[in-house]
């Protein structure tokens, strides 16, 4: 039995839900196919920094139940000597706080941040709207161009070292880069800082927000919006292959044997899984197949979500509420951990960022983001290592743990040059009608929905063209 849909989205998750919701809203008959029987239940990102605000507005997620427990998490920097500083939205408070670490950094931080945010905002059209690079460059002022040139080739570590003195501050700022999936010591990774600065959450540039209900809260809101718009969502439907006819997509075939026809397919799986796993061999050229089959980086940022009986006591430093801590004391931590990862060992001291659920939430949840973690790392060993590291800062932590979910990094190549390439390269494929909108197609590894939005826009345009002709 083969029904006809206008578009099929493979894989739920934030990207899949956004894509199918936008497609349905535009009037297409859209269906979402999810492999597992639960629509959401796996651990997801508890902090969002890059969710596309246009998606939030377009889908009216606020009305569908998306609320933020914390709109703007500050960043707490922990020194090896026990000093701490809080970087928040208030300029003066930040400067006063940073003076405890280094007086020079306190004065250097604000101009640096302003220049970075300035550049990020100017570069947004390239990342969000797929503008051509030349247009973007022409629109930049000279200081912005100079800064862009520098960021494009420098590593985040080198650039931060040239601006700041305090090791802890450099490491804390470098974690943003690592969270994007790029090594801070890699050439060109400084651009990831500009990418982070370009994002907007809850109306504030560069903010990190915590949705109420965690990642599941976001997914629930999205699925409600999708269903309201008229999209069909089917769970327990695993796609086994894609049907191709004459260089264009014809539909999908499920493991159960059913085939569904559709001229447009958006896949949230990785590029490699989609092109070499789902497509028939003859669909893409041999050169493209070779490119896809090339070995890619095998590590990224993992997320551990600890369900706790009660909030932990971070003893020595009593930081403000609604903040995130980076437990990396210097930039070398990143390098050493990366070397260990490359040598095949589990890093002794990975870089960790902690975010505690806000005071007053029904459950105490601690989210830890860990870098670098291999794609096929041993979950138990990782949990033990991270728990041990947190224990050093919060005595009695391990006794509080009620549950622990580990989300290992999803695949896809993570390289600094991905930030610099245009959106069409990431989303489009050689097969007409097949678009990628998963984490692979994003500029950086973060839940943003930008790729999903762009893919949906392409798909809608294609649909209109076919329908019109």
């Amino acid at each position, binding site marked *: 039995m083969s029904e006809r849909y206008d578009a099929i989205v493979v894989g739920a998750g934030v990207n899949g839900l956004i894509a199918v919701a936008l497609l349905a809203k535009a009037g297409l008959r859209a269906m979402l196919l999810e492999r597992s029987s639960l629509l959401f239940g796996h651990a997801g990102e508890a902090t969002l920094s890059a969710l596309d605000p246009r998606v939030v507005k377009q889908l009216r997620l606020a009305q569908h139940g998306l609320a933020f427990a914390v709109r703007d998490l500050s960043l707490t920097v922990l020194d090896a000597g026990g000093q701490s500083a809080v970087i928040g939205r208030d300029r003066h408070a930040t400067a006063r706080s940073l003076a405890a670490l280094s007086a020079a950094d306190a004065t250097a931080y604000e101009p640096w941040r302003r220049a970075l945010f300035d550049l990020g905002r100017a570069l947004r059209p390239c990342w969000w709207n797929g503008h051509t690079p030349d247009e973007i460059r022409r629109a930049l002022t000279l200081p912005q161009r100079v800064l862009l*040139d520098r960021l*494009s080739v*420098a590593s985040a570590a080198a650039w931060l070292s*040239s601006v700041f003195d305090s090791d802890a501050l450099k490491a804390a700022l470098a974690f943003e880069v690592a969270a994007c999936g790029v090594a801070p010591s890699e*050439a*060109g990774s400084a651009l990831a800082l500009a990418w982070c600065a370009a994002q907007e959450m809850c109306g504030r540039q560069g903010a990190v927000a915590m949705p109420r209900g965690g990642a599941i809260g976001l997914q629930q809101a999205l699925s409600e919006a999708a269903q309201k718009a008229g999209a069909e969502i089917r769970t327990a439907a695993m796609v086994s292959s894609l049907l191709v006819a004459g260089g264009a997509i014809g539909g999908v075939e499920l493991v159960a044997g059913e085939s569904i026809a559709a001229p447009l397919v958006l896949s949230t799986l990785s590029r490699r899984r989609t092109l070499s796993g789902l497509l028939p061999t003859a669909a893409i050229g041999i050169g493209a197949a070779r490119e896809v089959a090339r070995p890619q980086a095998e590590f990224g940022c993992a997320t551990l979500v600890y369900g706790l009986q009660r909030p932990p006591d971070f003893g020595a430093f009593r930081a403000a509420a609604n903040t995130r801590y980076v437990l990396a004391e210097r930039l070398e931590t990143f390098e050493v951990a990366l070397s*260990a990862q490359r040598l095949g060992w589990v890093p002794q001291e990975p870089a960790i960022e902690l975010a505690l659920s806000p005071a007053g939430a029904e459950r105490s949840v601690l989210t830890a983001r860990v870098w670098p973690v291999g794609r096929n790392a041993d979950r138990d060993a990782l949990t033990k290592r991270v728990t041990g590291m947190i224990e050093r800062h919060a005595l009695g932590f391990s006794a509080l743990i009620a549950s622990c979910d580990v989300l290992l990094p999803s695949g896809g190549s993570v390289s600094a040059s991905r930030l610099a390439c245009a959106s069409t390269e990431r989303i489009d494929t050689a097969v007409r009608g097949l678009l990628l909108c998963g984490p692979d197609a994003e500029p950086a590894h973060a839940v943003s929905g930008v790729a999903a939005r762009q893919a949906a826009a392409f798909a809608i345009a294609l649909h209109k063209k076919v329908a019109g002709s």
Partner: protein
Amino acid sequence: MAERYDAAIIGAGADGLAAAARLAARGMRVVVLERASQPGGRLVTRPFHAGYRASSFADDIAPIPSALFWSLDLARHGARRAPGEIASALWPGRAVVRGGDAYREVCEEARRRRDAALAYAAVPPSRPPSRFNPFATREREIWPAQSWMLRPLAEVVARHVEDDGEAALAVAAALEGQAADPFAAGTALHLLTAPQPAAWRGALGGLGAALTAAAQAAGAEIACDREVSEIRCHKGRVAGLGLADGGEIAAAAVISTLDVKRTFLSLFPWSDLEKSIVRQIGDVRMAGATARLLVALGGKPRLAVPGALPRGAIHLSPDAPDLVEAHAAWRAGILAERLPMAVRIPSLVDPGLAPQGGAVLTVTIGCVPHTPFDGPWTHDKRDVLVKRVLAAVQQVMPGLADLVVAFELLTPPDIERALGVTAGDLSGGAIAPDQMFAWRPGFRDKSPLTPVPGLYLAGPSSAAGALGTCVAGAIAADALFADRHAGRLP
């Protein structure tokens, strides 16, 4: 020695001698000050054992542009060059993998980009090339090395070379003597700075002697055994040099061929420089990872597999995962189990390097940490390194251990001591996209080559330094002469 010179050059290496020859040919009074007892810098061939000579620091160097070779008339001064043989790779038990057409294609691409980059470098860099656009999606190149700036080396090689063995050879040849992760972004730049195979009569010392002869024939004065301890300034301009033995040289301009850290942080009083400049120089990352083993053999080695001994570089088991591991180990200050090595037998090209019946074998080892994590290089650690290297070579050349008459090991600290290069880094700074081309040495808003009027930076740290031999010296000499002609020098 007490008179006033038009130009004083610190360091009689390739750049120093080329600059001296160029300036003296234009009628200027030039003196070159060299700390060692003979000129040549990197370009020396020393007898390391009775009757056996070898070039100590490298066998192959970045190429000299033809125009420079002609204008210095090096052929007339005795330099004889043979086109080098293409590199090959050897795995134990497998036949020799020679560089083939695809590898030649990669080398040709690299040469084309290197030449274009040198053309850019010849223009005094006042700011990074303004058309460098990291967001370009098409291969249409505005700037010579643009699409290679952020690409990983392995990816670029894989684009051109199909065969796995040849691809591994290409990666190893580009990373000879360096420590880099071929899968990390920005490592494709190593293709531009890789040494080019060429054989000189008398090994590199023959080239050094020809350069010395050219400089002397032009009228430059070369003073050896003179160490410069200070660059003296007067009213914000360079006024002369102070020597370690107490002497003084008065000069209207100074060309320094030392790397940027040594020039500014060792020879300059810091208070004379702006804080931002000092900071910038301090941020320059050096990556010294080269070690050299010179072996004197009592007979010609033979390969385990049938075939003639290759005359070019032989890379031993250049597998990419080993390179990644070795790089990670180098970062951590550990000596990896399988180090990247390139073996050459220079006496196969120039029989004068070894006595009759003997042979000279040189090994260039990469990913050797400058300071091991557990302390400086001791005799034990050196022994471990030598044993590891000889064992690896023995795997492909059986019976080598019986032929060894003597050997000499040069670790990165030894190279640092001998040549005065910071951290033993012969390229004057890590090869990374933010430290190449116009980002070296980074004095963008000041006069072309340094922030201090009258001081010119040639040598490995300058923009052309890693791309060609003698070019940086020629560029600095031209800039100096232009300034003098325009009256900007006293």
